[in-house]
């Protein structure tokens, strides 16, 4: 079966037309940032950097959920795996992220029960099948993932599952955008906004940030035509001097977003101040479980001692996540740090900028 809603957006003729338009319209050099790890991967995979004019720089922002997770949080995950009678369930990307002393992968090799799951359903199934163990799910991700975790908690309560717990390290994109805009190291002229976070939060959610900073913004999808359409919109906005908040992915993103998902998230979580790797503490940018769900809240149920956390020495992930440096500017890149022996999270996660640079190294440098 043809991959509908995908193949059409890879049409070389349409792509050529968009590239032509970008080349015609774009005059001055400028820097665009994509704020979504899936965009980073797609931009590299489709070779978008090579086909647009050289004076347009594409930078990656804090869009890889694993990468923005702080060292302290990683160390906490590792400590959780040491609690007796527990199984830690996690998405695969977290396994190899180096903590201060160890990683989840190391701990598993030492006999801790840590399991990779594809969705919270798998974690819930573990809880159901192994009732005498406590299952702790490591909740990492943005507004796209948070509703899926919230749904699992509601489901656990409905089903009377009492051995399922979530450690919430979720983060919200909008507060991080404001922090980026205020950061002196960040020098960008337009934002490619995340496609699937926007599916949940909707275009309207960006309005306050847009009205405050008036930076050209385009929500984009993930196929080559989608990404080029987003860039085309930003070029038009920049060259005409009329910033807009444009939705170039209307088949998936609406003004109000997915209300059902947003309301389940709202039902289970409330905002809290939280720290991001690279960006520091950002007010109201994290999500914690509401008191009504405290029985499922790993932060409340389990007290773990976490030794002093230290970020990997020499790793520039913090600045990579702000687009202030590119991975090859990091002294460790491709020397002591590579996907087989990663020093920082940006080299581990498939959505990490360093790993994307590394994989597509030969054609991107």
């Amino acid at each position: 079966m043809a991959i509908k809603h995908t193949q059409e957006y890879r049409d070389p003729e349409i792509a050529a037309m968009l590239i032509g338009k970008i080349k015609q319209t774009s005059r001055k050099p400028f820097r665009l940032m994509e704020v979504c790890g899936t965009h980073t991967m797609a931009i590299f995979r489709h070779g978008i950097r090579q086909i647009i004019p050289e004076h347009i720089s594409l930078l990656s922002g804090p869009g890889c959920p694993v990468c923005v997770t702080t060292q302290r949080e990683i160390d906490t995950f590792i400590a959780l795996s040491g609690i007796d009678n527990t199984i830690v369930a996690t998405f695969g990307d977290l396994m190899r992220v180096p903590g201060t002393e160890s990683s989840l992968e190391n701990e598993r090799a030492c006999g801790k029960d840590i399991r990779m799951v594809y969705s919270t359903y798998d974690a819930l199934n573990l809880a159901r099948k192994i009732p005498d163990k406590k299952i702790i799910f490591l909740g990492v991700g943005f507004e796209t993932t948070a509703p899926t975790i919230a749904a699992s908690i509601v489901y656990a309560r409905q089903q009377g599952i009492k051995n399922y717990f979530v450690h919430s390290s979720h983060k919200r994109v909008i507060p991080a955008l404001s922090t980026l805009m205020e950061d002196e190291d960040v020098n960008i002229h337009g934002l490619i906004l995340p496609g699937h976070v926007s599916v949940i939060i909707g275009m309207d959610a960006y309005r306050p940030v847009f009205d405050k900073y008036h930076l050209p913004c385009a929500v984009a999808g993930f196929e080559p035509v989608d990404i080029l359409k987003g860039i085309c919109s930003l070029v038009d906005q920049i060259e005409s001097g009329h910033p807009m908040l444009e939705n170039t992915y209307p088949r998936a993103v609406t003004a109000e977003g997915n209300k059902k998902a947003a309301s389940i998230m709202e039902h289970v979580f409330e905002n809290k101040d939280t720290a991001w790797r690279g960006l520091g503490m950002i007010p109201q940018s994290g999500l914690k479980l509401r008191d009504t769900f405290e029985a499922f809240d790993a932060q409340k149920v389990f007290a773990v001692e976490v030794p002093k956390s230290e970020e990997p020495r020499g790793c520039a992930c913090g600045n990579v996540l702000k687009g202030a440096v590119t991975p090859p500017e990091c002294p460790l890149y491709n020397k002591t740090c590579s996907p087989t022996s990663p020093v920082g999270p940006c080299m581990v996660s498939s959505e990490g900028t360093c790993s994307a640079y590394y994989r597509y190294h030969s054609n991107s440098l």
Partner: protein
Amino acid sequence: MCLAIPSRIVKIDNEMATIDVDGVQREASLLLLEEPAVGDWVIVHAGFAIHKIDEAVAQETLQILRDAASIMDQIDK
């Protein structure tokens, strides 16, 4: 973590759906989706369907792009 390729719902059983991703069948929860139906094209994230692709909008966008491409083509010739 995002599955950017849309999947088609082929079966619904309570709040779980069987989805087809380019010929491969998987399960996805429908808890976050309003009014799902067999035949819908959905975006799936971490085992949950999070959006139904708007067919009419998808067609309209493509038409506009194709028209623009053919105009550019004519100018080039």
